[in-house]
Structures are given as structure tokens and as C-alpha cells.
């Protein structure tokens, strides 16, 4: 086999540059897929030129207490993406058993079950289904978890927490 003297072993510095480039490539790839597929009720886009920080929107699924409401989320990607999960937080206040008052989310695929097979798209679809199907066994908002069985009362709390549907 031929050896290419120009293609020497990358030093640590160029290696981290390569890593950053591969994160960017992956995120661009995901952005393209997301735009082409047009999954209903979800969208996401980088904040300006910053590919490592995105803003996403999900719509509350029909037939759930979140119907007709939109929620904004912030997605922050580590340089070790996709080996490590992005940090995803609700920016729109939400009353939900698995979301705390700061917008932090408890969802297994964003924690111990994260792997490189997940994408921005699969995260948002999972979050959308988490809205209608919370995991009430590991709540971040205990009161919400207890109230889940009472949809009318729950819907009132959801509307009270939501700042309005104009965004």
C-alpha cells in the first residue's frame, strides 16, 4: 500500500480541530434531514451562526392537555456530540411532571440512554410524546405528577404556566 507523507498523524491540536469539524458536519447533516423531512409539530434551527446552540419548537399533541400550545426549547451541543447528549431545556415555562421550574427535563434518552443513534429530530419527537405520556414514576415536578389523573385541573395549570401562544 502507498503511504502519503502529507497525511501524517494529526497532532493533538489538529485532532481536536478534526473533532470540531466532525461535530459541525454531523449537525449540518441533521439540520438538512430535519428541513427535508418536515415532521409536523417540530422545528429547530441554529442560533445565528452558532451551530452548537439551537432553538427548537414543539407543538403540544392534539388530544392532550398541551393541545394548541407551542413550546420553545434551547439545545446546547457539547464538543463531544454525538457521543454525549445535548443539554435540552424548555425556555417556555411548562407545567409537566418531568420538567422542573428551570426548564430542566428528565428523559432517559437525554441521560443514561443517550447514544449517537439519536438526533435532534428523534429528541424532539420523544419530547413531544413525553408531553402526552409523562413518566410519573420519576417526576421533577411532584405536584404535576400527582395532578396528572385530573385532566381538567391539569389543563388549567398548563394554561396558567404558559405565557401565551403568540410566539
Amino acid at each position, binding site marked *: *500500500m502507498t503511504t502519503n507523507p502529507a*497525511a501524517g*498523524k494529526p497532532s493533538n491540536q489538529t485532532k481536536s480541530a478534526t473533532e470540531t469539524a*466532525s461535530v459541525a*458536519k*454531523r449537525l449540518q*447533516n*441533521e439540520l438538512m*434531514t430535519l428541513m427535508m423531512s418536515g415532521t409536523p409539530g417540530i422545528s429547530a434551527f441554529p442560533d445565528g451562526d452558532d451551530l452548537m446552540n439551537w432553538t427548537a419548537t414543539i407543538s403540544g399533541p392534539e388530544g392532550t392537555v398541551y393541545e394548541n400550545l407551542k413550546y420553545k426549547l434551547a439545545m446546547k451541543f457539547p464538543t*463531544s456530540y*454525538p*457521543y*454525549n447528549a445535548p*443539554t435540552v431545556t*424548555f*425556555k*417556555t*415555562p411548562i407545567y409537566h411532571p418531568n420538567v*422542573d*421550574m*428551570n*426548564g*430542566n427535563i428528565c428523559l432517559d434518552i437525554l*441521560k*443514561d*440512554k*443517550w*447514544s*449517537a*443513534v439519536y*438526533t435532534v429530530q428523534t429528541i424532539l419527537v420523544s419530547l413531544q410524546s413525553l408531553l402526552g405520556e409523562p413518566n410519573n414514576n420519576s417526576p*421533577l*415536578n*411532584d405536584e404535576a405528577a400527582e395532578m396528572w389523573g385530573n385532566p381538567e385541573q391539569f389543563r388549567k395549570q398548563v394554561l396558567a404556566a404558559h405565557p401565551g401562544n403568540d410566539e
Partner: protein
Amino acid sequence: MSDNSHNPPAQDAETYARPTDDEILQYERKIKEPHTLAPLVGEKTGFESLQAEYADGSPTTQAKIALLAEEYSGLRCTRRDGNCFYRGLAYRLCELVSERKDTLWAKAVMQRLGPHSREAVGRAGYDLDLMGDFAECWEDAVRDGDREGAAADSVVCWLRIVTAAILKNNRDMFEAFILDSYPTLDLFIGSQVEPMNIEADQPHIVAIANALGVTIKIGNLDTTLNTDGVMNWHEIEPLEPLVIPDSAPKAEDQPQVVLLYRPGHYDILYPI
């Protein structure tokens, strides 16, 4: 809401007593620090450090190490980050292929770890557009004999996906191993195979040996299985061995990947 990223006043002790994700991550990093500072794959050494580590250990372990030192020229330690099995396997296979470049064995292995693995991953339903970059890192590293590249996270990630694909494509066979402890094979894969930093166990090793067509031999330093000081070895042979033409010269060997197992960790062993 952007000003809410810091700890708010403790209005509700119950809610805020919970550590934040950042605090948990920082703590995790702190306790793992000694391991994360270790090289992904270290230098090849003799058995002195292993002997020193077990100087106060059981006589069984010491006897096993003494036997290893007679039959093996050394070992290479991998970082204890839960990826050690995949990393050790990838690194060693890359070495073996580059030492035997252009042999029929090396060509057969390249076929398995390249097109054959990609086909399996695609058939299992994974998005090859998304996973193809990882596959490329692995194939390039082995072709170029770039051992450092073969130890990268991208390669660990790809080998995990290949392992998962083999499990999915041979559902009937693997469910028998797994359904005792997991309700479905897919739940097992989602929590024990795909995520980084989760150790490999018997089903993972059987699956990846089948994918790559290479025998993986594992020496067990555990004292619970054997009390007479004889090393217990497990040889995991691929169900579909490599197809090597009859024209292969008799002198061409078909090397194995040999690993040393201690509970929760794998290192690379070098035969004399």
C-alpha cells in the same frame, strides 16, 4: 426565562434540594478523573505492574498472573471508561491487520469490517447516512494502520452499532440470552449496547466476533470461577468464520484478539 439558569432562591426545599444535572455531571467527572486522565490505550508493558497491583491479592490471582507472564509477552492497558472492550478490540485488530498487510486473512477481515458490517447495520434499520462517518473512521484507521485512530470514540461508537445490528439481525438466537434480565431485546440494546461508557458482556462479545469473523480469546483473572490457579480462558469463535481461499499459503496465520478480563475491565494481551 434565560435568567433562570442559576439556582433560584429556595422557595421550595424539596424541589431545589435535588442536585442539578450540571452538579451531577461535575461530580461524576471528579470521581472519574483518575481514569479519564489515563491514555485511551497505553504503552505495551510487562506484567510487573499487574503483579504489584495484586501483591496483596489472593494466591489464585497471583498464580494466574505468573502463568500469564510465562505465556504472554506483555499487556496494553485501556482506559477504564466502560468502552475498554471495544477500544481494545479495535486497537488490537488494527495492529494485527497492519502487521499482516496484503495477506488473504487481512483482506478477508477488511471485507468483514467494511462492506459486510455496513450491510448488517443498514439491514438492522440504522440510518447509514448518519452512521457512515463512524464507519469511515474505522475503515480508514485499519487500512492505514492508524492505531490511534482505531482507538477513537468514533470507532467505539461504530462497533457498538455493529454489535447492536448483529443482535437485531439474529433476534431469535440472542433473545434467549437476554430475556431473563430485559423485557425486550430492543430495550437491552438501547440501554446496554448503543450508549457509550457501558461495558460489554457475553452477548456483545459473541455478536461482534460474528460480525468481524475473528476469534476473541479472553483470559479471566476473576478468582470466583477457579481456585487452582489455572487461568480460565474463553474463546469466542465467530459462527461464520472468514472465507479465506484455499490458495492461502499454509504459513499464513489467522490471529486471534486476546484480552485480559478483570471484573468490569478488559486490557489487551500479547502472545509471545
